[in-house]
């Protein structure tokens, strides 16, 4: 079963409409509705009415919930509370809430709330927030710079280096745009509460709610139904979750919050948002000598998540290359905008963009072929594990193979041949290295007397096909058909612990935990069968639901062994995977720019990705396809934009366009397999690889196409929408 591209058992329910997402649950359909009044201003003093209640409606004010804070959970700028209090720090921040019997009533009630806002000057862009007289997001911090990560600095870093380029790159802020907006239903029951929520990490939320409300673990149950996409943004603790739990306990009835798309695009955490000043130096023969980066990262109004993302950016600055000396200065900057979080890649796509764009710019400076420059500087296979000098060591890699295949498949030599005056063609490469999360994960595998296997896993899919994939691992060890395996996840009352799904951790940590637990169960069964059949355990093979003595047809049904046992034959495992592992690959693409309209076509797109050994190649390929289109879209179409006053300009799906099938090029995916030496199956993560390689590949192709017109980063930055490209062409023309 390992390595088989099985179609997914999950699909029947999803395809027939019977699978239940949050708002499909009966308890959601019958709950009271929480609607949130949000600050219309990026920075404002807030004056709320004193009284709390009218017939049929319930107003939630900061005074009601003054005790519900989570400053103690996280260090850094206070305060953390569900409602803004008397100062709003971003447009969209919750200032009050209303509970009504249905959505319409709750929203109607919001409009009748008498709330006074006094708008204050706001620091919206990074430059505003960094200026000497900037309005401060937190006065008590004395500055908007709340994160500082700096290496030592040698003023002579580039002394004697033959060629040095200096560039500034911009990674726009992006919205995750999952199809299912956030939702939560809190259901109270005699001092206990069940929280149904679309979430990536139920155990984390359980812990947070216990801490905030002073509950014991058995008083809070978090249950996650089907989740319609997450991409990192359904992991944080959001104020609405706290508000719903409080309201449900207060009113003794289920209370639901269901985010509208306009809210989703505003306050469900955005990602990216970095300005990067880069100096890259090489010897005359193109061998890299030194890299210095200064990065300003937009944190929005809170540092909580982005400060982790920028650490990941710093760790991945070396990319696929041997760079003897790397220096960095990374600042996290608060702005009067919604808090920025982790979005698929979470800091690593930004690092990949930085180094891959810099390599192309350096190649242009040296009049060297960009592919050749990369090959010359790749970390050679014999140098793994490779310490990058940025706080991380890569486990394994074979970067040259991926590049060579990608070049051949894209037809690199002839890629620009069809370029004409009106339709400029460019070819772009990105040789990325990704980092997939370390840590630990829990699994329990139990063979029951029915002959079914029940797997408890601490991971939690939102589209990644874990049920099928973990079933394959169990079927492999126990010699059972995959449809005899049932995977249980997302319920803190049934699964005792877990780390959820994020950071491409699930197969490496969760899958390995399932694999090891399954081996232990298999070994138990072999020992039991051996005793019963008077053979040695090493001579027992598990196949077709039986335990056979190898080379004979003497065997016993596994079900009988379970019956003999008097209980399910089960094993638990916590796999402490420890260090991160490093997927990698090369993406290559050809674009064509219509100089008259500014439109860009992706003519061809090829990727060679390596995530080590693969349990289900169909699922893995799907992850790459989806991530790659997101990355392409980030380069060509998407950016969160605010006006000068901090008003969101991209608040619906017409102003923040998610790519449709019309915008999706046919992507050719190939794989190499370089196992990770740090887990037994040799797996690496893959969920975030596509988005990491795609954005710089497209950007490099676009700048390559526009190079004859002298257009560089100072003239045009992402997203390369037709109007921006057209304007850049006219202005440099």
């Amino acid at each position: 079963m390992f390595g088989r591209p099985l179609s997914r058992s999950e699909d029947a329910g999803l395809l027939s409409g019977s699978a239940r997402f949050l708002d499909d649950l009966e308890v959601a359909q019958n709950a009271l509705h929480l609607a949130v009044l949000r600050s219309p201003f990026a920075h404002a003093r807030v004056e709320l009415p004193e009284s709390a209640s009218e017939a049929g409606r319930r107003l939630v004010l900061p005074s009601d919930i003054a005790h519900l804070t989570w400053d103690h959970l996280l260090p850094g700028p206070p305060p953390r509370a569900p409602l803004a209090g008397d100062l709003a720090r971003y447009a969209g921040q919750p200032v009050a809430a209303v509970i009504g019997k249905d959505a319409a009533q709750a929203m109607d009630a919001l409009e009748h709330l008498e709330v006074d806002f006094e708008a204050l000057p706001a620091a919206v862009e990074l430059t505003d927030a960094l200026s000497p007289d900037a309005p401060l997001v937190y006065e008590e911090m004395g500055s908007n710079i709340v994160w500082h990560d700096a290496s030592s600095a040698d003023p002579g870093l580039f002394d004697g280096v033959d060629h040095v380029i200096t560039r500034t790159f911009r990674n726009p802020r992006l919205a995750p745009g999952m199809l299912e907006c956030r939702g939560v239903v809190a259901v109270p029951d005699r001092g206990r509460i069940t929280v149904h929520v679309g979430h990536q990490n139920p155990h984390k939320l359980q812990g947070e709610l216990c801490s905030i409300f002073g509950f014991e673990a058995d008083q809070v149950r978090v249950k996650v139904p089907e989740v319609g996409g997450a991409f990192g943004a359904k992991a944080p603790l959001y104020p609405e979750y706290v508000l719903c739990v409080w309201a449900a306990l207060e009113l003794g009835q289920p209370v639901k919050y269901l985010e509208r798309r306009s809210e989703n695009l505003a306050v469900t955490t955005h990602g990216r948002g970095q300005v990067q000043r880069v100096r890259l130096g090489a010897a005359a023969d193109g061998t890299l000598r030194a890299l210095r980066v200064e990065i300003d990262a937009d944190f929005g109004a809170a540092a909580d998540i982005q400060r982790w993302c920028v650490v990941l950016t710093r760790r991945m600055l070396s990319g696929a290359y041997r760079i003897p000396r790397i220096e960095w200065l990374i600042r996290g900057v608060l702005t009067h905008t919604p808090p920025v979080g982790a979005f698929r890649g979470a800091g690593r796509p930004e690092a990949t963009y930085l180094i891959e764009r810099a390599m192309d710019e350096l190649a242009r400076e040296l009049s060297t072929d960009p592919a050749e420059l990369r090959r010359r500087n790749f970390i050679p296979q014999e140098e793994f594990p490779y310490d990058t000098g940025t706080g991380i060591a890569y486990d394994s890699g074979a970067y040259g193979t991926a590049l060579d295949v990608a070049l051949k498949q894209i037809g690199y030599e002839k890629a620009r041949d069809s370029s004409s005056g009106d339709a400029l063609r460019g070819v772009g490469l990105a040789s990325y290295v990704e980092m997939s999360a370390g840590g630990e994960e829990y699994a329990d595998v139990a063979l029951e007397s029915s002959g079914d296997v029940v797997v408890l896993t601490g991971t939690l899919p939102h589209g990644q096909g874990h049920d099928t994939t973990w079933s394959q691992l169990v079927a492999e060890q126990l010699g059972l058909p995959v449809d005899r395996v049932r995977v249980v996840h997302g319920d803190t009352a049934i699964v005792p612990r877990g780390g959820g799904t994020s950071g491409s951790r699930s197969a490496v940590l969760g899958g390995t935990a399932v694999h090891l637990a399954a081996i232990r169960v298999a070994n138990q069964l072999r020992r039991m069968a051996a005793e019963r059949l008077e053979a040695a355990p090493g001579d027992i093979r598990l196949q077709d639901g039986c335990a056979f003595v190898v080379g004979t047809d003497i065997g016993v049904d596994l079900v009988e062994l379970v019956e003999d046992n008097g209980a399910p034959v089960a094993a638990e495992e916590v796999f402490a995977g420890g260090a991160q592992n490093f997927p990698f690959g090369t993406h290559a693409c050809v674009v064509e720019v219509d100089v008259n309209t500014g439109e860009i076509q992706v003519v061809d797109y090829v990727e060679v990705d390596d995530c080590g050994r693969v349990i289900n190649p169909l699922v893995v390929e799907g992850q790459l396809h989806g991530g790659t289109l997101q990355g392409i879209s980030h380069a060509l179409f998407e950016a969160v934009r605010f006006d000068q006053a901090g008003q969101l300009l991209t608040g619906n799906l017409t102003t923040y366009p998610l790519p449709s099938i019309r915008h999706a090029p046919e992507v050719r995916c190939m794989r190499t397999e370089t196992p990770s030496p740090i887990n037994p199956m040799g797996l690496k993560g893959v969920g975030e690889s596509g988005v990491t390689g795609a954005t710089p590949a497209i950007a490099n192709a676009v700048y390559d196409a526009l190079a004859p017109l002298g257009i560089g980063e100072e003239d045009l930055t992402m997203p390369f929408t037709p109007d921006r490209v057209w304007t850049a062409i006219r202005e440099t023309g």
Partner: protein
Amino acid sequence: MRVRFRVNDRSVEIEVEARRLLVQALREDLGLTGTKVGCETTTCGSCTVLFDGEPVKSCTVLAVQAQDAEVTTIEGVSPGASLSPVQEAFKREHGLQCGFCTPGMVMSVVALLERCPSPDEEAIKEALEGNICRCTGYVGIRRAVRHAAGLLRGESPPIEAGRNVEEPLARHAVGSIDIGGDDDIEVV
């Protein structure tokens, strides 16, 4: 207001406010939660149903407009336990991941293949550009449409999932791995 129409070959009659959307009526009054709501601007297509055979976004149709209409939702695509050819094709070609856009996407594909049994690339794009998917990159979806078209034309039988997935081009060995612990029995 009272409105009477047919949903999935069944007659229904419900009492609704004038402002009630068809998608709300389907999901909340009729319990057909397969159809989803994903936006407020008629953009995402998660709410797509068939309305007198045409794919429409039910978030932009008032329930009262459905008077005397024939509505088909995802629940009506495969009565009974088995999957229809379109659904089977989606499964085999991994044309869905989180599944939220899937009901709407399937309805659009069903409508497309009913009127156009052999759609070309442009016909597929035009039929599906109103259904947004954030997970698949549309590669699996395009494969599913072609596969479903073949099934409906009575051509080749259902194909093994993953036939489009390539074998890895190179496999590198990296030593042996010690998982430790007390279970040393070799794994087959």
